[in-house]
């Protein structure tokens, strides 16, 4: 029984890793840019969801519109995704794009992303203060117990959402025109504009897609772990990045597999060994995987022609 419980736990937490890893991988797939601010965009997403929900629902000292929780949830999800994608696009337009135009080394853009993340975290701390926010309950929690295994309806929603998002993204990237353009850019950034495809539009679209996923993950995360703080995105962001790379960065299937894999490894280590050894063992396993498969599980080795 304990095994099934751990299995379900791993599925749920893996879903969060997977959802965030998808954002990393989308941007990376197109721009070869590790968007280290992504974990913090996820945090901003959770905060946006909080403010939208409180505004609609009322409470927390605000009068609000007094909508029902279900209505609030229905409105919060799209609004948060839109607003969060705006944050992502703003970062791209004000910080990454100018650097790209100047022909800066890829790693300078990465460092800029790191700095942008720090700014989001600490800006949030400075503006909203150190008090944590408690996310309102938007979904009446139901605990189902089957012979010692407990599941909440929220857990099911999270797992289903991760799978739906994966299917949707896989469809967009492999079947639609804009998805093909995205894949095209990752092969050859210079040829794509010559084919009459607007490079910047595609890049902005990628950021919209990636950041809105972070926003969605933010809402689901805030509902599952209803305590918001400015640094909540930092650790999970790093770990999701690791998941994306272990899966094979740039590949959507890789992000999903990597995310679930990390969830299973972390929870598996805790389940079998003393939990104090979790980080030690989990990261050793990941290191071992990369040792054996140097380009991740789904990554294709770059063949160099000479």
């Amino acid at each position: 029984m304990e095994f099934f419980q751990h299995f379900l736990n791993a599925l749920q937490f893996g879903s969060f890793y997977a959802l965030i890893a998808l954002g990393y991988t989308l941007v990376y797939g197109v721009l070869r840019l590790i968007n280290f601010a992504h974990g913090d965009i996820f945090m901003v997403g959770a905060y946006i969801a909080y403010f939208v929900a409180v505004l609609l629902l009322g409470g927390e000292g605000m009068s609000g519109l007094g909508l029902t929780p279900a209505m609030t949830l229905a409105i919060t999800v799209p609004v948060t995704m839109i607003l969060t994608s705006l944050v992502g696009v703003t970062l791209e337009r004000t910080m990454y794009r100018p650097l790209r135009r100047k022909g800066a080394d890829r790693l300078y853009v990465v460092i800029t992303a790191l700095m942008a993340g720090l700014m989001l975290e600490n800006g949030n701390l400075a503006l909203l203060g150190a008090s944590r926010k408690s996310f309102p309950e938007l979904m009446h929690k139901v605990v189902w117990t089957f012979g010692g295994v407990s599941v909440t309806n929220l857990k099911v929603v999270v797992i289903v959402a991760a799978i739906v998002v994966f299917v949707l993204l896989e469809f967009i990237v492999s079947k639609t025109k804009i998805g093909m353009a995205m894949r095209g850019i990752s092969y050859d950034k210079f040829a794509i504009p010559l084919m009459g495809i607007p490079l910047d539009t595609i890049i902005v679209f990628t950021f919209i897609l990636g950041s809105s996923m972070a926003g969605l993950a933010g809402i689901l995360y805030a509902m599952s772990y209803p305590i918001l703080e400015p640094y909540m995105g930092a650790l999970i962001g790093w770990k999701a990045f690791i998941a994306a790379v272990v899966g094979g960065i740039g590949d959507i299937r890789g992000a999903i597999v990597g995310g679930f894999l990390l969830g299973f490894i972390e929870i598996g280590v805790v389940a079998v060994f003393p939990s104090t050894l979790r980080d030690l063992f989990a990261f050793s396993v990941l290191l071992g995987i990369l040792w054996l498969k140097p380009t991740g599980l789904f990554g294709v080795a770059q063949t160099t022609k000479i």
Partner: protein
Amino acid sequence: MQKHTFTISLFAGIFVLTAMAQFGVINQYLVSVIMLMGVNIMLSTSLNLVNGYMGEFSCGHGGFMCVGAYVSSIVTVLLFSKNHILGAPLLPPSLALFAFPLALFAGAAVAAVAGLVVAIPSFKTRGDYLAIITLAANYIVISAIDNMEIIGGPRGFMGMNATVNGMEGLLDIPWMLLWVLFGTVFTVWLLRRFVSSTLGKGVPAIAQDEIAAEIMSVDTNRMKLIAFMLSSGLAGLAGGLFAHILGYVNPHSFDIMKSTEVMVMVYLGGMGSLSGATLSAILFTVLLEVLRPLEIWKWVVIPLLLILLMQFRPEGIMGNKELSDLFPKLKKYYSFK
């Protein structure tokens, strides 16, 4: 004669700084800032070998620093402090002066060996995959120390002051400042000698075209081994000094945040420039201290400044140039090889 001007003025500078600290011309706070500046210079120049010269993306430098800090601290504590492992100190405090560099060396050596964890996978993998390996290495080091009860685990480890006191008992001068200054000069000197030699130029050759390098007789695996081990060894040296400056170490002082800071210093200075890494380490340390009064806003302003700087100079302060490339007149005085 002119060729030696730089070396002479360097040692004169160290002497003057130490004397100023000794006679209270600069207060202890400034001395402490200067010492941390030295440590930061060591960290950023050593990471520059891997991230700048070799073009890899190592984001776990803090882990190696941690190894060096703990190993050298354990050695000095075993030798000179009353401790719960061996009880009484093994050696009289008067020997601290001679044993301290050996302890630092031990820390650096173990950190260099720890560098193998990253160096060996680097034979097969590159870029972002290697970045994850370095990141994982950082987590593994911290988590391992958290689990080692005998050296305090998350409670940290202390007792290094006895060694510093032992040195001061022999002769009452600011020894730690002196050691840090020597360590900094040693690090930059070592790296400078390495990267200016034909052997060392194999490292940027790997960054620019690894296949050409291998086919043009550069043993790329050996070069990677040297670069990673040298880099992590020097980080270990910096860690040892850091631990003895504070007199206390805690594994969580060396987490991803520390590694991030070092990375920022490297890219801010310019990939492949030792003078750039030095300048940016100084700038960064000073910025951190000068902006203290901003309190919470400090960590909003610093990233903002760095972002602006990178927009303004997308190749870092120095690009891949050294000071002597930009001011050729300096070459006359510049024999820091």
